[in-house]
Structures are given as structure tokens and as C-alpha cells.
């Protein structure tokens, strides 16, 4: 059953240090006044223009087998291939920051306001990621239920196009979840619009199932490396 999850814009505003890092400014750098001003302006614009929305739907292992395989172009070995069979629950998700914010970024670039356009784009990307983190917490709490602690159980997200899971799995994911109902469309190249949209699966189970070494063949060329940070946060804090 497809469920709508409310995402409050104030709760997905990214941290300034994350914004500056994403803009290529190393941690600990002194931020000049004109850049601080850009950041403030972009956060204000995001709060005014973003229209976040989200849907989720639990799926069976059988159904997810088909979604994961997609068009059959995954890497032979991929972390999710080992992880999802060990899950207690699998939940498809789609989240978007809305068309308005993407359109605004284009308008800013067209007016030669490149710095502000780039900053708003960064804020929107980080907010989309933060929405997924909120969803991870939401699903974890949902399945932990009335227990006093989560006993090491948690939900983590995985998306097509990353870590050996081929992007064309989006087609099967879309046919199951129907994110079109919150305004997300998929083109022939598996590009989602609005651009600030994320889809994937939330895998709920014992946190140990999510642990893997970043030593797959595709890890070498990966620029994101977000799995390393995530593993550090979950397993070493």
C-alpha cells in the first residue's frame, strides 16, 4: 500500500558546513562575508520555493528481486545484492523537492546569477538527501514499534545508479511505486524530473547487514564515497 509521508521543509534544511563542503570549501576554512550572504540567501529561497513530498510502499522480497534485477545490467557483485535478502522489511521510496526549485536554479543561471544558482542547487541536493535520512529514521521507528530501544536494528537507503545497482532498475521501481503521483517522471535514459528527486529502497534489519567493504570494482572510480562516511557514522561512532 502506498503511503504519503509529510516532509517539513524546516526539518530538511542542510547544515552550513555541509553546504560549504559541497561547494568545494574545505572544512575549517574561513568563510568570507559575501559567501555567508549567498548561503543565507539560498536557504531563504529554498524555504520559500521548495515543495517537498514523499511516498513509500513496503514490498515483498519476491517483488524486490524483480526490482533489483531491473533490466539485467547490474554489476555481478553489488553490496545491495548481499544486503537485501537479509532484511526484515523492504520499503520503496520516492522523494522530491518539487519542480519549482529546479526551475528557479535554471532562471538564476539564465540571469547570470551563477553563484546564487549554484548555492540554491547545492541546498536543494543536500535537502533531498536529508529527506532520505528522515525517512530512514521514520521507517526505523515504525518497525521498532513500542520497544524501548531499536536493539541495533535500522533502515538504510539504497538507490539505483549507485554501488553496482544499475540505474535502469528505476524503470521497475517506477512501475511498482508510481512516483508520478507526486510529480516525478522518468525519461528513457532513466533521468528523473524534477532533478532534485531521489528514489530507492529502505532496507530494515540488524545494522550488521549493512556493513560492507568499499572494495568492489566500481568503488575505484566512485566520486561520491558516501558509503564510507555512512559506515563510519553507523559502525564506529
Amino acid at each position, binding site marked *: 500500500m502506498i503511503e504519503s509521508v509529510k516532509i517539513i521543509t524546516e526539518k530538511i534544511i542542510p547544515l552550513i558546513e555541509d553546504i560549504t563542503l559541497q*561547494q*568545494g*570549501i574545505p572544512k575549517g*576554512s574561513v568563510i*568570507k562575508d*559575501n*559567501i555567508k550572504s*549567498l548561503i543565507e540567501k539560498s536557504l531563504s529561497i529554498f524555504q520559500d520555493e521548495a515543495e517537498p513530498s514523499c511516498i513509500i510502499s513496503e514490498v515483498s522480497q519476491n517483488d524486490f528481486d524483480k526490482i533489483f534485477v531491473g533490466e539485467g545490467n547490474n554489476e555481478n557483485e553489488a553490496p545491495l545484492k548481499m544486503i537485501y535478502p537479509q532484511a526484515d522489511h523492504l520499503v520503496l521510496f520516492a522523494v522530491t523537492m518539487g519542480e519549482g526549485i529546479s526551475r528557479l*536554479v535554471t532562471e538564476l*543561471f539564465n540571469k*547570470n*546569477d*551563477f*553563484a546564487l544558482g*549554484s*548555492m540554491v*542547487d547545492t541546498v536543494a541536493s543536500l535537502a533531498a538527501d536529508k529527506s532520505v535520512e528522515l525517512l530512514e529514521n521514520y521507517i526505523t521507528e515504525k518497525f521498532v514499534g513500542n520497544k524501548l530501544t531499536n536493539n541495533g536494528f535500522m533502515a538504510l537507503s539504497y538507490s539505483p*545508479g549507485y554501488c553496482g545497482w*544499475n*540505474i*535502469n532498475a528505476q524503470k521497475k521501481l517506477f512501475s511498482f511505486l508510481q512516483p508520478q503521483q507526486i510529480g516525478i517522471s522518468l*525519461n*528513457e*535514459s*532513466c*533521468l528523473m*524530473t524534477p*532533478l532534485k528527486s531521489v528514489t530507492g529502497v529502505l532496507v530494515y534489519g540488524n545494522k550488521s547487514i549493512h556493513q560492507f567493504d568499499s572494495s568492489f570494482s566500481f568503488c575505484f*572510480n566512485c*566520486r561520491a564515497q558516501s558509503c564510507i562516511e555512512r559506515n563510519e557514522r553507523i559502525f564506529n561512532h
Partner: protein
Amino acid sequence: MEILKEISAQLQFGDDEKVFELTKQAIEQKIDPQIILADGLLNGMSVISEQFRNHDIFLPEVLLAAKAMYAGLDQLKPLFIKEEIPTLGKIVIGTVKGDLHDLGKNLVGIMLKGAGFDVIDLGKDVSPEKFVETAVKENAKLIGMSALLTTTMPMMKTVVDLLKQNNLNDKIKTVIGGAPITKKYAEEIGADAYAFDAAKSVECAKNLLNN
């Protein structure tokens, strides 16, 4: 000339309003537009490029400087109608067919323009035929392509192959970039260069067009 040094300095500060005013004054003082461009605007951008390459400044400062550059450039453009705008060469850029990501491509365009190239930006979702036709029509020496999806990367090979089929690959070079793109991929498809980021794209363009 003091005013040109001031244009360059204010561009480096990213003050687009001051660059606009100073460029206007320089034009009123009947300074040659080519000199305002070269010694004022492009001078400032070359300092910015160098600082960016050396990691002394970062993306926001480059983009603020670019806005300032455009504030000056937009006033000079009408003055070049009757004569060629001096450039290092023409480059056609775009995001390949099926792909709508254009932030990186836009940054490349800005950096190339700041370096003195004449940039024809075809936008996003550009067919291979359009890349080649435009390059031929505009007498461009370089095609720069961006892709952010593994599903759209193959379009880059189609462009390279089209150039070869039409015996244009010696005359028109190709440089590719984007998150899933690697040097190895560039070599596999026969592209002339791979640019890891916008700063590198300028270096690639200079190398390819000088050779």
C-alpha cells in the same frame, strides 16, 4: 591604465555592480573595447582561474567573479558587432541527449568564456547530430560534452564516431566530462581529452586548440 586595473580588481572581488559601472566609464573614456576586455575582464578572470587551480579560492568566488565578468561583457558585446570579438577559438558545449543535468556544463562554459574562448552552449539533451552540425557551421575546433548518467554516456561515442565518419575528427576535437566519466572511458571511445572538472576543461581546451 588605472581603470582597467580597477575593473580587474573588482571582478576578482566579485562586485558585479562596480564592474558594470567601471566598464561603462571605460567605454565613455573611448578605451578600445578589445583592451577593456583583455586587460580588464579577462585579466581578472585569469587571476581567478589561477587562484582556483591553486585552491586559494573556491567555487562560489569563481562564480561571483563570473557574474561580474558578464556584467562587463554584456556592455562590450554590442561594440564588437562590426569587428570580430577576439577569442582563443570557438568551442561547442552541451549535455548529451537524454540528459538534463547542466550545472557542471554551465560551469565549464563560464570558465572557458573567462579564459577567452568563444563558447556556443547548446544546452541540454543535445543530439549527436546537433553537436557536429553546429561545430561545422560555426567553424568550431572543439566539442565539449557532459553526461551525468551511465545511460547517456554512450551518446559521447556517437558524437566521436560521427566526426570520424565525416572525416572531421582531425579538424574538430572532443573533450568529455561528468560524474561517471573517466580517462579510461575517454580513451575507449576515442575522445581527445577527459576533463575531471571545469578548471581542467580550460587546460584541455588550451592544449587541444594550441596543438
